[in-house]
């Protein structure tokens, strides 16, 4: 009996020791990115596995991510070593992020690195990876491409014409749009449609040009698969042939290229009267003030910025490196397909780069909701465009004033809160 007790004691002692060791060494990487299970697993096995002290990579949904981050910060102690997230996610916790100015980020382009300052004079986060949105077409859709249209210089009118021809030719709409609960529809309005027509995301929200843009989108919607309100990741509908032509985040179309490399083409987003609006998405890594071991967290950030880690991240998540790397020959088909399209889009003569919302803090969700509400009322509920824009402009103005967020590109810089004309 006694020997059994000793044995038990020894076992629990051992367990305690191991528990303590692993708790001390592993860095908890609390991230909103790579949420799909396969991507999370790839992040663990192929990206962070090489970091010696060990990494516990967790990818919760944005809501729980923020709740825990805020809880740890307000409690003054925590287990999270690194907060990973989109620019907007990190903005919501910027007050609790420590200065990372001592990390060498000379390899990151200066304008990209500047995002990480979050409108302070400290380096609040370090850019981690970046992405954008593209158009994708099944090669079967190319037969319906309007005469004279250039895939690399498409206009919204041509896109509508193309979708119409396809809907009529095939008997059912083949254009798909990620308007599902987790779809990135709001990014399309903020970063593509509205800037292309009005040259603005916020200031010209209720302008005549914005009115025209929504009218165009309503036209396009006639030739859009009505199941679009259930579409979240367009790669699913591309792969099962439900949709032949669509728009989405490059990480959400990659499966289409990787599973059927010869069947799809990627190309730049369309342009409107004010240019070819497109949005760049930046994800970053920050270290909360409450991190158990800040030096180790910083070491992990440095590890994440190594070219080979950045390439592994690209393979895992389809987000592009933030440092210059030489892409190996065997990159996934999705990277081969999106690379030239991104190049064509960003270097287009009428390119109109749009930034992710900045300075909205925890009002980010409500900011996005303004655009989603506008879409749901105008396009789904069929309400009149003008009164809907007037009413949503009020909501938008209230949010901008509450956040006191100055304008960001493409809106002209403002003193104080970005105005809604």
């Amino acid at each position, binding site marked *: 009996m006694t020997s059994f007790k000793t044995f038990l004691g020894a076992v629990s002692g051992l367990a305690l020791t191991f528990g303590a060791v692993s708790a001390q060494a592993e860095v908890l990487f609390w991230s909103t990115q790579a949420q799909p299970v396969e991507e999370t697993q790839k992040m663990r096995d192929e990206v962070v596995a090489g970091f010696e002290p060990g990494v516990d990579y967790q990818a919760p949904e944005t809501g729980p991510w923020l709740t825990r981050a805020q809880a740890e910060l307000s409690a003054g102690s925590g287990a999270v070593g690194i907060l990973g997230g989109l620019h907007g996610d990190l903005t919501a916790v910027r007050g609790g992020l420590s200065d990372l100015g001592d990390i060498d980020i000379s390899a990151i382009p200066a304008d990209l690195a500047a995002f990480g300052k979050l409108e302070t004079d400290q380096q609040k986060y370090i850019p981690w990876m970046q992405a954008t949105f593209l158009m994708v077409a099944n090669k079967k859709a190319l037969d319906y491409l309007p005469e004279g249209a250039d895939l690399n210089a498409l206009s919204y009118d041509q896109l509508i014409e193309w979708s119409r021809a396809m809907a009529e030719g095939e008997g059912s709409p083949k254009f798909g749009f990620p308007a599902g*609960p987790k779809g990135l529809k709001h990014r399309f309005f903020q970063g593509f449609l509205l800037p292309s027509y009005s040259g603005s995301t916020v200031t010209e929200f209720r302008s005549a040009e914005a009115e025209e843009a929504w009218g165009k989108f309503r036209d396009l919607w006639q030739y859009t698969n009505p199941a679009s*309100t259930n579409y979240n990741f367009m790669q699913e509908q591309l792969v099962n042939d*439900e949709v032949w032509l669509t728009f989405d985040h490059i990480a959400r179309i990659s499966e289409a290229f990787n599973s059927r490399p010869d069947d799809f083409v990627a190309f730049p987003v369309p342009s409107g009267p004010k240019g070819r609006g497109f949005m760049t998405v930046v994800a970053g890594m920050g270290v909360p003030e409450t991190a158990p071991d800040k030096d180790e967290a910083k070491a992990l950030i440095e590890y994440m910025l190594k070219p080979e880690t950045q390439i592994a991240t690209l393979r895992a998540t389809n987000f592009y490196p933030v440092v210059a790397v030489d892409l190996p020959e065997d990159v996934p088909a999705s990277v081969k397909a999106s690379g030239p399209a991104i190049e064509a889009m960003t270097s287009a003569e009428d390119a109109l780069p749009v930034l992710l919302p900045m300075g909205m803090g925890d009002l980010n*969700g409500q900011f996005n*909701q303004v655009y989603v509400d506008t879409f749901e009322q105008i396009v789904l509920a069929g309400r009149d465009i003008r009164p809907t824009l007037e009413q949503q402009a009020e909501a938008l103005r209230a949010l901008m004033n509450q956040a006191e967020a100055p304008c960001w590109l493409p809106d002209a810089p403002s003193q104080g809160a970005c105005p809604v004309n």
Partner: protein
Amino acid sequence: MPRYLPYLLLLPATVFLIIFFLYPFTQVAIESVTSNGEWSLANFQKATSHWKFGEAFKNTMLLAALVVPIQLVMSLTMATVVQKLQKGRSAILYIFAIPLGISDLAAGLIWLSIFEQSGFLNSMLVGLGLIEQPILYLSYQSPWIILFAIVLAEVWRATAIMMVIIVAGLGLIPREYGEAAEVFGATRWQRFYKVTLPMLRPSLQTALILRVILAFEVFAVVIALGGTQMPVLMSETFNWQFNLQDRGVAAAYAMVILAVSVLFTLIILRALHVPKEART
């Protein structure tokens, strides 16, 4: 038996309720009537002035109004059938109760796999040659089908909980009343309507209160089948809390659900009032 023993036995449950129910509840209640650290009704104003509030409120009420009566009639019928069975009574009871063991989200997903565009219903209809192409049922263009699917899933999932309570209640009614009525020549229907139903009041009360409150909290089934196309009070609460990150407005929504639940509980208590003398 020491005098304090009953209190001691109640203690764990009381502590549990205080920590995990009363404390968070008080916090939510306070949160709903404060904004920027001051007492105010701004959260309620923000919640009710959003264009989806009316729709969410309407949908929740409509769902409750459709689901609960159907379930009441079905559970009464099922309970009576079970009660009358000589053989295999518990087997049938278990089979009826199977959906109870399935989480509401899983139930929603089961019905989604039926109604989806690539779901079982479409593949069956296509297989039978009744339709040529899969039909899109759960579309924003046909909110009535979404509503119908949700009602169906809710009825399938949660009728059994009412049935179980009513079966227990039926077992408590002494046979003599029914037999006496029979002697006086009452028909089956009269016996059910004039004897069983009134005697069932306490059980009906419990079953209805439970079911109506659950109906106001409907969430996972709606999300699974309707996505964001069928807002209900609970899904809007979730939306404000997690997507729009405004806890005050989410708390205000929670208070609205509470108010509606309390109101309907009082109505049911009053309507199915059991006089003190009649309580056994």
